């Protein structure tokens, strides 16, 4: 009995050491990749009117678009959410909001890895047209893409995240 318990403790020690090794190895590999991403982040921050997005869920960058006299004419938010494709290739959109930080003026697809004929239907003009003038408060009313449930959910989520972020920012400015 005692011997069996000792064997259990040894097994636990072995698995713990292996787990530390695996997690440490993963961390090194991920760190390398993030190092490259950091440079990209700096470029975003240098854009005029950049807004700090640290800690905001699913928000890559955001900025105020101003006219010559410095008045805010729109807000731009780049947001992402996992769709049908692997998490390394999320659905990423740039959403331009009117100065009320609620009404969507325009959406632009930055990148996605969705399947042709299904999720990739998001690129169609007829689908994107629905967003013009839409109130982002009603994100759940975004039309579903037939046969692409996960892509639809990703779009609803990223629009909702972008709205929550920018409306909160505008309210507390």
């Amino acid at each position, binding site marked *: 009995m005692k011997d*069996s*318990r000792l*064997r*259990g*403790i*040894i*097994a*636990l020690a*072995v*698995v*713990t050491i*292996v*787990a530390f090794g*695996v*997690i440490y190895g*993963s*961390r090194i*590999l*991920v760190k390398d*990749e*993030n190092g490259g991403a950091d440079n990209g982040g700096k470029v975003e921050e240098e854009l005029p009117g950049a807004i700090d997005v640290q800690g905001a869920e*699913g928000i890559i960058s955001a900025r105020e678009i101003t006219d010559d006299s410095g008045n805010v004419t729109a807000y731009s938010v780049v947001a992402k959410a*996992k769709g*049908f*494709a*692997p*998490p*390394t*290739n999320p659905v990423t959109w740039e959403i331009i909001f009117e100065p009320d930080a609620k009404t969507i003026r325009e959406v632009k697809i930055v990148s996605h*890895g*969705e*399947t042709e004929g299904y*999720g990739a239907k998001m690129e169609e003009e007829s689908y994107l047209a629905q967003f013009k003038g839409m109130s982002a408060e009603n994100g*759940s009313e975004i039309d*579903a893409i037939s*046969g692409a*449930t*996960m892509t*639809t*959910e990703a779009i609803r989520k990223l629009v909702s995240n972008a709205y929550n972020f920018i409306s909160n920012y505008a309210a507390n400015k």
Partner: protein
Amino acid sequence: MKAKYPIEAFALAMVVFSQNMRNALVTGILILLIATLGLVLDHIFGDMIPRWSRVSCSIILMTAVTYSLFQVVLLAVLGFEIQQSDAIFHIFLGILIAKHIIDMDGERDYNRLLLEGAGAYAVLLVISIIREFMAGGAVFGYKIAEFSLRSGSFSNVIMGFILAGIGLAVLNGIFRSGTNTGAVDGFLVVFPVVLEIQPFIIDSIGEAASVAITAAIALVLFYSVKRYLIFSKLGKGIKNLPVDLVSMGFIYMILSMF
């Protein structure tokens, strides 16, 4: 022969956490670590408390440890994003590990746990490499090839079920732990998946009602397949295949058309 590793927890990981190698690498080793920790704690303290208390303690402790450890490792150490659905799956993983510990009452074999657990971990990694490579031409998030045959379908839960079924069949064959439909309790694997990843959504009704209806349809179809399989005479060649899990992949495929 009963599997000595947490087979349902690994099966769930093969379905939902094998989309890419990063998640699979961390998920597999953490399942093995938590299962070993749970078995050792149960071995040392299990006899000191009554049976009912031991069962509830195992479930609460394993669920709490699993959830916390995944949060610490993924968020704090690796800096990954954890989606809400993933966090819920981590809770289910904890419950499945607790079930394994309770089932192993008096049959603890640490050598077999490490051997079979290492085998399950290897299969989980192979599945993740196949899915990530075929979906995006990448491994561990690094793009290594660009080819026309790749398809986003490999990252779908449909492929998760099918590859998990094949992976478990290989493990059952090697460790001879399988019986008719495999040693895995398919319902415990399928239930969290249908709750979190619905094959289709119904826009015209509320979200909660849509989830309830979709999950119910998927579970009824799964149950009907499982009942029918009781009367099926399976050939020797596919005796180790958990047919119910593979069938769930096809059920998802059919329901996704709506």
